[in-house]
């Protein structure tokens, strides 16, 4: 095995949750009154249920719908996510943060936006998988670079970036320093104001 060959992606989803999705455990799929059931169908298969109109917000349950990506598609998602956001010197790679599982959650969801996204992402992963799963390092890189600019790549990158930067690790990487209780809001620092003034002067303001 070459040094740069991708290590198999190990899903961050625990086994019990996965069994629930395929109906072996079952309890979490019980949904109460008030749940909107969506009608769009792929082929003849009805969509699964969503999380309903009154989910627990403080301790959210894992998204209840079954996941649809095959093992190969999930591995391909990991390779592409890490092509987009490999580890940097200070931040982890996309797959380390479980982004491939998020992609699976997203394309498996029963809601209209996600169903639309599914039809773009899933075939894209299948096509890419044929090119990269068994390829040598150089061929894999060529295939990934050739993908840039395609509608599939653009959609996948938006999801990967969105999922990555909505984690604590992503906050740190992008420079979000909020979400902490404060006694007061002192406003921007002198350093921030100095940069602002410089920029405003350039604009003649």
């Amino acid at each position, binding site marked *: 095995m070459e040094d740069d060959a991708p290590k198999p992606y190990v899903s961050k989803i625990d086994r019990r949750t996965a069994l629930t999705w395929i109906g072996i455990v079952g309890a979490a799929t019980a949904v109460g009154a008030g749940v909107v059931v969506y009608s769009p169908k792929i082929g003849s298969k009805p969509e699964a249920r*969503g999380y309903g109109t*009154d989910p627990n917000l403080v301790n959210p349950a894992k998204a209840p719908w079954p996941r649809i990506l095959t093992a190969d598609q999930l591995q391909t998602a990991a390779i592409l996510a890490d092509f987009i956001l*490999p580890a940097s010197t200070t931040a982890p790679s996309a797959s380390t943060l479980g982004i491939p599982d998020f992609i699976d959650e997203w394309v498996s969801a029963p809601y209209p936006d996600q169903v639309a996204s599914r039809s773009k992402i899933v075939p894209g992963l299948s096509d890419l998988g044929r090119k990269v799963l068994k390829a040598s390092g150089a061929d894999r890189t060529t295939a990934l670079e050739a993908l840039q600019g395609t509608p599939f790549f653009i959609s996948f990158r938006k999801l990967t970036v969105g999922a990555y930067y909505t984690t604590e690790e992503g*906050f740190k990487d992008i*420079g979000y320093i909020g979400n902490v209780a404060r006694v007061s809001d002192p406003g*921007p620092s002198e350093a921030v104001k100095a940069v602002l003034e410089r*920029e*405003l002067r350039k*604009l003649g*303001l």
Partner: protein
Amino acid sequence: MASEPYDVIIVGSGAGGGMSAYHLTKSGLKVLMLEAGRQYDPTTETPMFNIPAQAPLRGASTPDKPFGFYDATVDGGWEVPNEPFTVADGSEPFIWWRPRMLGGRTNHWGRIALRFGELDFKPRSRDGLGYDWPITYDDLAPWYDKTERLIGVSGAAPPRGLLNTPDSPAGCLMESAPPRAFEIFYERAFRDMGIPVIPMHGAVVTQAMEGRNTCIFATPCGRGCSIGANFQSTTVLLPPAMATGNLTITTDALVYQVDLDKVGKAKGVSYVDRKTGKHHSVTARSVVLAAGSGETARILLNSKSAAFPDGLGNTNGMVGRYLMDSVGLGVQGRFPALENLPPTNDDGQGTQHTYVPWWGYEKQKELGFPRGYHIEIGGGRRMPSLGIGSYVADDENLVGDALRDKLRSRYGSGIGFDGRGEMIPNDDCYCELDPDVKDKRGIPVLRFHWKWGDSEIRQAAHMVQTFLEVIDRLGGTPQPGFETDGRKAISKGGEMIHEVGTVRMGQDDKDSVVNQYGQSWAVPNLFVTDGAVLVSSPDKNPTLSILALAWRSSDHLVTLAKQGAL
């Protein structure tokens, strides 16, 4: 807890119902409040510091949670399960946001708490359009003062005397947090255009206030607030009302009818229990409707009797008429000047710290549209959401460190400009009972009719031009997705969730349903204290005015009750 016989039944627990309950119970009256939604407790149910990664789909908007997973709204949104409505053939689109929870929309609202001004109460006298209220600004001003002091409103500033943009008297408002970087930034462009930028009035407690927690300058208000630092009926009005011992709250009670006695006075209401489907009737000496403009009108229209074959108080066909919303639209800009700012915490106080009140009252003729709008402006380095990937353009082939660097510099460099404008009431905007469609309990549903007037369309076009000019002056680029044609740019009816009117107040029963105290002309022990009573829909967001009017009306109800006049 109070028990039968009640002095007052209040239908609804939001701004109007909550304020009515607060004042009536404090005045010693025994009150039963009926809420269509479920019990809701912000102290335990608010996802204060949760991040998107903890939510399904990173918190993205879905039909189950249209404003995102963490939005406070329970069992509602643009659709409510089992509670349909219809829009008439040939109507422009109308959409209707409803929650089903104690406290109603006050749990998720934007907390923008602007007073209506003196011109807003006399629009017809000003330019011959719309209708005058039976009260003036001065009639309501003392109630605005009391309301601001009670609910906690920030935005204190030295008096400016801007036309139709009232200054609150000293002591009513707390100081806002200072402007954030993007707010300092955009103010310069407006200043250059001669347009004032002033502190927003926000229903957020920013300084020490007796009996309330102060804002912690983190977590979005739209989720609600577990420490009660912003205004929600469920944290500010209902707990003190309960503490009097004079309030009983029944949730999951979907009221559909006001019941009358033999002499034509209200004797109570009938409701369906949402959980059991059973019908109940309860009685009281008087009834207050505060179910929201749509639902309040529906209850009246469904209250048919020999004396009122077309619905209670609808002898002159006024119930459901003059439905209004705000005009709304937004344009986003990206600003290279904001890239590469040092790290800064822009979480702020939830509401905008500053805003742009309407500046064109004295040049409406030359502008070519009769009524104005204010601008609500959002930006800064807020908690990233799933949409953050759009900071990189589709055709930028960036990955790895180059992608990380680009995102880091552009993050927070976007500013969104949103207009909220006055709508003039017109004959084409109203609701009525659908002659065919009933909900699953057999109750006829509302059918909406909607048509924006030319005044609103021209105003919307002006909003877009203003935002484009400001973005240009700031060296920015408008983001795709905006329309310059006012007809295409304008919001859908109901979309701003400021639907008001339908049971308006007036001087007599010929052209109104209730008097200046929300008291029904037809049934004197029946009151309306929600947004249904509004005669005009100024650009200012309606909640503060609904609260002030509800307090004033409730006080009148107390006076009548003490005189034995109910």
